[in-house]
C-alpha cells in the first residue's frame, strides 16, 4: 500500500480508471457517452466545490450560479466567436472566475451558516434575474441556444459557412459521442491533478488551517481573507469550467442550472463521496449521476425481469417492495442513501473504503486518518 502514497502513482491510477470508463462501466449498463460525460463534468464541479468546502470549510449553497454563468458564457462564445470549444471553455472559466471574485468578496465577510445564506441569496438572485430582467442575455425560460444567423465572427473570417448550425468542435474534430467524453475526461484528470497540487502546496495547507481554526490563524498574524477568496475563486472557476463543458457537449444553457437545488446536488455529491478527500467528490458525482440515469430508467417490468430467477411469490414481493424506489421515485432512493451516509458514515464513501481497508490491515481506522483535520478544541 505504500506505493499508493506516491502522488504520481495515484494520478496515473486515477487517469487509468477515468479513461477506461467505457470498458468497466459496460457491464453495469452505464457505458454510453452521454452519462460518462455527465460523470466527468460533474466530477470537475465536485472537485472544485471540495476545494472550498472540503479544504477551506466554507459551505457554499449557491455554487450552481457559477455553473450557470459558465454555461451562458460558453454559449455566447459559440454564438459570437467560433464553434471551437477551446475559447468557449476558457471564456467560461474566466467569466465564472470574475463572477466568483465579486460574490466571494462580499460573502466571505461572514462565515458559517451566514456565509451559506449569503451565497444562496446571490445564487437565487442570479437565477431570478436570469429568468426575468436578463432575458436579452439568457433568453429566459427557453434557454440560450444557437441559431442559424449567429455572427460567429472568427469562423466567418476563416471559412465559409456550411449548411445548418455547425456542432461544437475541437480543432475540426466534432465533439460528439465518445470523443466528447474523452475531452471531458482529459480535463477531469487535469483538474484532479491541479486539485492535488493545491492540496499538497503550502497554500493548501493554509486552507486546511483555516478550516481547522480560523481564529488561531488570525492570532498568529495571518490575514485569512486573501486565502479564502482565492479558494472561492478557484472553486468558482472549476464550476465555470464544468458549466462550459456542459454547454460544449450540448450547446444549450438554461437558468434552471443555477437553481438552489442544483447547488444542493453538488453538496450531496461531495458529501456522498467524502468531504476533504481528493477522489471522493468524483466518486460521489459518478454514483449520483449513475443512480439518476439508471435508477430513473427502471420500471416494474424491468424489476420483474431482474428478480425473475426467484420463485413467483418472492418475486412479486420484492418487486412491490422495490418499485417505489426506482423510476419516478429514484429521488427517494437518493434521499434515503444520503441520510444513511450522513448518519453512519459522515466521511462519505471514501471513509467506508478506508474502514474496510483498516479492517484488513488490522490497524485501527483512526491511524488511517492521515491528512484529515479535526477541529482542535
Amino acid at each position, binding site marked *: 500500500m505504500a506505493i499508493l502514497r506516491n502522488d504520481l502513482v495515484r494520478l496515473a491510477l486515477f487517469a487509468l480508471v477515468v479513461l477506461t470508463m467505457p470498458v468497466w462501466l459496460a457491464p453495469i449498463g452505464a457505458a454510453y457517452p452521454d452519462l460518462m460525460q455527465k460523470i466527468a463534468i460533474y466530477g470537475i464541479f465536485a472537485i472544485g466545490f471540495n476545494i472550498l*468546502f472540503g479544504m477551506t470549510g466554507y*459551505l457554499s449553497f449557491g455554487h450552481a450560479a457559477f455553473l450557470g454563468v459558465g454555461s451562458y458564457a460558453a454559449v455566447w462564445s459559440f454564438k459570437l466567436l467560433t464553434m471551437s470549444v477551446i475559447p468557449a471553455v476558457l471564456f467560461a472559466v474566466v467569466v465564472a472566475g470574475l463572477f466568483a471574485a465579486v460574490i466571494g468578496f*462580499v460573502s466571505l*465577510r*461572514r*462565515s*458559517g*451558516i*451566514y456565509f*451559506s*445564506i*449569503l451565497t*444562496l*441569496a*446571490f445564487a*437565487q*438572485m442570479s437565477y*431570478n*434575474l436570469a*429568468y*426575468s*430582467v*436578463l432575458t436579452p442575455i439568457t433568453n429566459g425560460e427557453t434557454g440560450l441556444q444557437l441559431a442559424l444567423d449567429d455572427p460567429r465572427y472568427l469562423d466567418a473570417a476563416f471559412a465559409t459557412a456550411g449548411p445548418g448550425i455547425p456542432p461544437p468542435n475541437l480543432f475540426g474534430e466534432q465533439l460528439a459521442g465518445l470523443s466528447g467524453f474523452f475531452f471531458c475526461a482529459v480535463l477531469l484528470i487535469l483538474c484532479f491533478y491541479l486539485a492535488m497540487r493545491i492540496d499538497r502546496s503550502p497554500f493548501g495547507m493554509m486552507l486546511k488551517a483555516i478550516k481547522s481554526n480560523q481564529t488561531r490563524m488570525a492570532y498568529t498574524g495571518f490575514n485569512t481573507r486573501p486565502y479564502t477568496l482565492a479558494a472561492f475563486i478557484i472553486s468558482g472557476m472549476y464550476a465555470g469550467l464544468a458549466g462550459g463543458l456542459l454547454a460544449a457537449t450540448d450547446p444549450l444553457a438554461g437558468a434552471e442550472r443555477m437553481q*438552489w*437545488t442544483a447547488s*444542493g446536488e453538488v*453538496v*450531496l455529491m461531495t*458529501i456522498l463521496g467524502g468531504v476533504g478527500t481528493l477522489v471522493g467528490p468524483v466518486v460521489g458525482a459518478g454514483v449520483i449521476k449513475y443512480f439518476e440515469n439508471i435508477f430513473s430508467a427502471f420500471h416494474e417490468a424491468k424489476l420483474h425481469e431482474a428478480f425473475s430467477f426467484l420463485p413467483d411469490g418472492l418475486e412479486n414481493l420484492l418487486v412491490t417492495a422495490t418499485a*417505489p424506489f426506482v423510476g*419516478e*421515485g429514484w*429521488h*427517494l432512493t*437518493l*434521499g*434515503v442513501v*444520503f*441520510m444513511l451516509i*450522513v*448518519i453512519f458514515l*459522515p466521511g462519505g464513501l471514501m471513509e467506508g473504503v478506508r474502514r474496510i481497508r483498516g479492517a484488513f490491515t488490522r490497524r485501527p481506522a483512526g491511524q488511517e486518518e492521515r491528512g484529515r483535520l479535526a477541529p482542535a478544541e
Partner: protein
Amino acid sequence: MDQFVLQLLNGLDKGAAYALIALGLTLVFGTLGVVNFAHGALFMIGAFCAVVFSRLLQLETVTVDPEKLTPWGSPMEIRTPLVQAWLGDFGAFLVEWSVPLSILFAIPVMLLIGIAMERGLIRFFYRRTHAEQILVTFGLAIVLQEIVKANFGANPIPVATPPALSGSADVGSWIGLGSIYYPWWRLIYLGFALVVVGMVVSFLRFTTYGMVVRAGMEDRQTVGFLGIDIQRRFTVVFAIAAVVAGVAGVMYTPIVPPNYNIGMDFLVLSFVVVVVGGMGSVSGAVLAGFLLGILQSFAAMNEIKNIIPGIDQVIIYLVAVVVLLTMPRGLLGRRGVMER
C-alpha cells in the same frame, strides 16, 4: 392610495406565511441548536393533512338510479358523501368547512410527526456540525417529499375554500376609503397567523413552562443542574414548531393548491427570513417575516418596477445581503448566538 393598501395587505399576507414557518425554524434553532432543513417538509405535510381530511370527508356512495336519466341517456349516478348521508345537514357543513376543521386533524398528526422526528433523528445531531445537520435534514425532506409524491402524485391538488368565505371583503369601506376588495380567506389567514404567533409568544413569555424553556435557551447547563429535564421540554418545543408549520400549511391550501414541492419553495425564503431576523430570535423572525413580505409585494408594484427593473425578483435576497453585512446578528439576534 388604493394600490398602496392593497399591496400592504398582500405583503402582510405573504409575511404571515413567512413568519409562521420562520417562527418554528428559529425556535428549533434557539432551543436545540439544530438547523432544520426539513421544516419546509413539515409545512407540506400540514397542507396534505388538509387534503387527506377533505378526501376522507368526501368519501361517497355512488348509487345508480334507473328512473332518472342524464341528458346523455345513461342512468343517472347519484353521489352522496357518506358524512352527509349519516349526519344530514351537519355532514354537509363538515364537508364545506373541511379546511378549517382539518386543523383539528392536523394538530395531533403534526405533534406525533414532530416528536418522532426529534426523537428518531434530530437528537443524534445535536453535537454534529451545522453542515451535517443541514445535510441530514435535507435528505429527510427529500424522503418525505417523495413519499407524498408517490401517494398523491406530482400535480397540485386544489382544496376548496369554505363557500361562505370564498368571496372578497370590501376592505376599503372599513377604513373610509373607496372600494378595495380583498379575498376573505387571505384576511382570515392573516388573522390566523397573528393568533398563532401570539399564542406561541405568550406561551414562551407568560407560562412557567415557557420561562424554563427560555432559561434553557440562555444557559442549558445551569437549567439542567437545577434538576429540570430540559431535553424533554426542547422536544416539546420541536413538536410545537412542527404543529405551527403544519397548521400554517393547512390554512394555506385554499390560497395555493399544494403539491409535494410546496415546502421547498417556502424553505429557502424562510431561512433567509430567520437569518435576517437573527438566528434563534422569535420576535426577530416574526418581524423579518412581515418586513420582507411587505417589501416584496411593494417591489412588485409597476411604479417601482419601472424605476428599477427586476427588483421584485431579488428584493428579499438583496435585503438579506445588506442586513447580514451591516448587522452581523441580524435584526434582533441575541448576543453570543452564532456571532461569527
